[in-house]
């Protein structure tokens, strides 16, 4: 009988070994694969149990905070829709977006248990994640949103010397605190409230593009501010005609005057002198046809290649019409090259990350050049041209007593029968630029009447701080 008992024991040992091997398979070999199954909500649950870091504006306002319910943390956004397209949302149902998505790991802090000491530390209290400090000034952001009002469009304000984004407003917006009630609606809405028009809205630049055309022409020494041109009502190019806004004729004037009044027929001539090669190369130097390195998702601004451009398209491209499409952020960067001696700084919106003890943990130098668009001399000359626009050209609405403002209007044709897009790009003060502003109002009218006053308000708000 003892022999049989031994055999039975061995049978049981074999069965137990099979269990142990299977357990080893599940917890070592296949663990990663099984745990990462999409239906395993442990990861999400884990994140809900961590006190996510705060997101704070440059002026110390909390933009994303936590509400604790049943020892889970849920996000609340005190600034509501005002910062929705920057901060984004973090939601167990709808996922996460923008900075909440981009810096998810940082906001959550550490993840797995790393040591015995760490475990003891964490069963007593889970460490909160890291805070993000933004470059956004909530006061400027608010003023910019007020100035834009409920007109579709976007406003970008940045510091040309560093690339720090000071304000970034888009309209229409959504309230990240009310996703449950509005999710269906904001996804269906044809006005796309979820879209950040500042970084992802593509618009024809209109005459604001003349900043690029002028820079290219001056850089290539095609002309000087004092060069004399004839600005007729219309210009024949290969059987097609280029016209001015409201079919106005300007007659003989200098290049500087042509920039100030935004004369298309003269800029078309300059464009033809430059050639497609020269114009496109310069535009690409300003960052078109390149992905903008940024913490938020961006769309790439586009200009056709030189090979695709016939003289008609070249003439229209030189005045910002045709197939060129740009984002407001891109136009702000173009303007920042003029304001910053020809160099575009890499834009950024997160200036610091701090752990829960207040120690700074993100220390990479933030002010980094992204592109040299033009020479310092050219930048200074174009800056003078832009000052002229505000002092006695199309941008008078951006004048501020005691401050020299440099700017350029744009009035972009879009769909036939619809109102033009109103553009204004500016920087101030002209001799020591503190900020660059780019404004677009969809189907708003002319840049000088509609967009320039918005830019003025943003400049006033910023310089007043």
């Amino acid at each position, binding site marked *: *009988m003892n022999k049989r008992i031994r055999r*039975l024991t061995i049978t*049981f040992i074999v069965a*137990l070994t099979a269990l142990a091997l299977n*357990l080893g398979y599940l917890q070592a070999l296949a*663990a*990663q694969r099984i745990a990462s199954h999409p239906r395993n909500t442990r990861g999400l649950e884990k994140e809900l149990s961590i006190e996510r870091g705060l997101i704070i504006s440059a002026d110390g306002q909390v933009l994303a905070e936590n509400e604790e319910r049943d020892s889970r943390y849920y996000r609340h956004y005190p600034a509501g829709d005002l910062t929705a397209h920057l901060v984004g949302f973090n939601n167990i149902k709808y996922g996460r977006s923008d900075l909440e998505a981009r810096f998810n790991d940082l906001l959550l802090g550490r993840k797995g248990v790393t040591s015995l000491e760490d475990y003891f530390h964490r*069963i007593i209290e889970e460490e909160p994640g890291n805070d993000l400090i933004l470059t956004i000034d909530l006061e400027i952001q608010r003023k910019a949103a007020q100035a834009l009002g409920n007109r579709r469009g976007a406003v970008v304000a940045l510091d040309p010397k560093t690339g720090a984004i000071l304000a970034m407003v888009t309209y229409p917006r959504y309230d990240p605190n009310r996703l449950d009630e509005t999710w269906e609606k904001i996804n269906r809405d044809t006005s796309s409230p979820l879209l950040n028009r500042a970084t992802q809205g593509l618009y024809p630049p209109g005459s604001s593009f003349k900043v690029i055309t002028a820079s290219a022409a001056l850089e290539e020494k095609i002309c000087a501010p004092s060069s004399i041109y004839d600005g007729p009502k219309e210009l024949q190019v290969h059987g097609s005609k280029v016209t001015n806004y409201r079919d106005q004729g300007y007659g003989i004037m200098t290049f500087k005057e042509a920039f100030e009044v935004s004369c298309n027929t003269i800029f078309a001539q300059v464009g033809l002198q430059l050639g497609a090669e020269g114009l496109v190369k310069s535009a690409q130097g300003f960052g078109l046809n390149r992905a903008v390195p940024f913490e938020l998702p961006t769309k790439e601004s586009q200009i056709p290649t030189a090979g695709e451009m016939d003289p008609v398209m070249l003439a229209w491209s030189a005045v910002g019409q045709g197939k060129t499409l740009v984002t407001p952020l891109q136009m702000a960067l173009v303007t920042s090259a003029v304001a910053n001696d020809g160099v575009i700084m890499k834009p950024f919106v997160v200036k610091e990350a701090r752990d829960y003890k207040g120690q700074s943990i993100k220390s990479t130098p933030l002010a980094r050049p992204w592109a040299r668009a033009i020479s310092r001399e050219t930048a200074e000359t174009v800056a003078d041209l832009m000052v002229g626009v505000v002092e006695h050209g199309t941008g008078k609405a951006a004048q501020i007593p005691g401050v020299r403002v440099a700017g350029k209007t744009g009035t972009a044709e879009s769909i036939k029968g619809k109102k033009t897009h109103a553009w204004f790009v500016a920087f101030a003060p002209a001799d020591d630029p503190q900020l660059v502003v780019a404004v677009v109002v969809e189907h708003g009218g002319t840049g000088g009447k509609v967009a320039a006053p918005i830019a003025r308000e943003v400049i006033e708000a910023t310089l007043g701080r």
Partner: protein
Amino acid sequence: MIGRRNREIGLLLLVLIVALIGFLLVQLSRTPSPSTPPAAGLAALVILPFFVLHLLERRLAPEADPLFLPLAAFLTSLGTMMLYRLKPELVSRQSLWITLGALGALGILLFLKDYAKLENYKYLCALSGITLLLSPALFGEEIRGAKLWLRAGQLSFQPAEVGKILLVIFLAAYLKDKGRLLSLAERRLLRIPVPDLKHFGPLLTMWVISLAILILEKDLGSSLLFFGIFLAMLYVATGREMYSIIGCCLFLAGATACYLIFGHVQMRIDIWLNPWHDVAKSGYQIVQSLFAIANGGLFGTGLGLGYPNYIPAVHTDFIFSALAEELGLAGGLGVLAAYLLFAHRGFRLALETEDEFGKLLAVGLTSTFLLQALVIIGGATKLIPLTGITLPLMSYGGSSILSNFILLGLLLAISQKTAQGRGT
């Protein structure tokens, strides 16, 4: 032999320390609330019955094996610790059952020290065992698809838990008498000795009973368990592999028939074959168990830092998965090792015991203990189809705790008598 008892108390103290640390960690991980009882007190409360048992053992069973009690204490405190982590409100009730269980084991040591007496009551055991096994089919209440429970007011009871011990006693006594007879081979089939057809009576009877459990109570786990215990004991008693082979075939045939006839059996098997097919509904429980186990990895998430409460019935059938999540492969293997060691001592006891009834009883009880662990851990880890039975001494549940303590008491009694008999 006092040396054995001193080793036992040493090991029990070790278990107490482990339990104290475990309970304290669980308490630390939880946000303090006045309703949850304090950890240190709980750990002490859970271990206390074992110390009391130990003290009485010194008088009643001084030479019993010193590993049974500490191993049982280890498994019980791990189980209660996980229960404290998962459903703290159930801990006081569980510790009450542990105390009752210890009293049961004590009762065995007091009144059944001479367990051979049981042989005289074998038919009473058989009758009451089968009645208990089948009673839920007649008066029972269906919980989670299986009819296992008898309910009297607030108290619900799983009679099968005690029934299986009575049946083991009966089988040990019956097979002691009839084992030699059953092992007589009178004919050969393909040169393999085959017992006479009339000796297949007991096998067929047990087969019918286990099928009755499966069909009437929809309980695949208990059915498998009873038949498994019977086959193990039959094999040890007769030495005829043919019984085991034919038994397995019979069980498979029965189970296959049930698979074809009964929806619930079919569903169980289909879920086992592919739980990922319907993760949200039918496969939910086993998939959550697999997620928990996988999430644990080698060393676990740490006590209190996992999410085992996603698994339905985690504190009864899936307590092992919860432990594997928070203590990892290391913890899971630790638990398997404890069961292995327990079984090893049980079978060693069977080897050492002189009288045949004691041998068969030890084999039956040890097999019962280990088979339960194999069936439920195998089910929770998807090695075999999932069947809802409790993990001995670890799962929450009064009947299960009570019956396993009685099992422990019987093993201690056999062990005492064996050691005494050998005069060591």
